[in-house]
């Protein structure tokens, strides 16, 4: 897992497996990084995610709740097909927005920011 920063957005590149042994670390690290940077928005790049189970999906969905409660937006990017099918089975595919690339997600977040800016 690696962290990258763009204006108003934290980008997390996932790697390896997200299950019961790693979900807690994932949650704590991402939440801490969101607090530290003050970034309201989160991009989770799942390209390097080799394995996820329902515990891992719960941790991903938990970050979505965290970010949206704070008024921000969370977008998944580069979702591998097998993760996509699990998101669909879990009923999360329609709840968690996703884009093909980080750049696409940044564009969506950027235009949302512009649209929401005071005139």
């Amino acid at each position, binding site marked *: 897992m690696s962290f990258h920063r763009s204006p108003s957005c934290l980008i997390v590149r996932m790697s390896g*497996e997200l*299950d*019961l*042994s790693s*979900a807690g670390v994932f*949650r704590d690290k991402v939440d801490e990084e969101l607090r530290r940077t003050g970034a309201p928005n989160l991009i989770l790049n799942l390209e390097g995610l080799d*394995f996820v*189970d*329902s*515990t891992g*999906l*719960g*941790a991903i*969905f*938990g970050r979505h709740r965290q970010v949206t409660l704070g008024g921000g937006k969370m977008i998944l990017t580069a979702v591998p097909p*097998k993760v996509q099918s*699990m998101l669909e*089975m*879990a009923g999360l595919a329609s709840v968690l927005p996703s884009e093909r690339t980080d750049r696409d997600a940044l564009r969506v977040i950027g235009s949302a920011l512009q649209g929401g800016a005071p005139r």
Partner: protein
Amino acid sequence: MKNEMRLTLVSIPSNVAVARIAVATFAASQGFSVAEIEEIKVAVSEAVSNSVLHAYPDGTGEVTVRAIHEENESGRGELVVEVMDHGTGIGDIAKAKEPGYSTIPEHMGLGFSFMESFMDSLFLESQPEKGTLVRMVKRQCRQ
């Protein structure tokens, strides 16, 4: 020919991966496809996670994972996976299997749904203070 693997683990989170990798390796050695193995991995992960999370609320205990590969009556290979603990047991099995039901925050309550979706059959037996047995079967597409 019948083949069998048995593994007893301490109920700690890092052993969830040990269990699923062991069963995945066993399934691969028996000729299961990559797609089938991915599904088996999720199912094993869910069953073992349940034991780690719920079986021993006051500490740790044993979780035994057994995988058996044999041919059924029609000559088709099938993998039986059993995950067994000697913990508190499940009070209300119907409730536990309900999609979305979980007693832990940030957990989806989808473990049994995933086991049912990814395997061809699921059998669950539990007795209070005796433990829980999950038996799942995956039929092999390719021979």
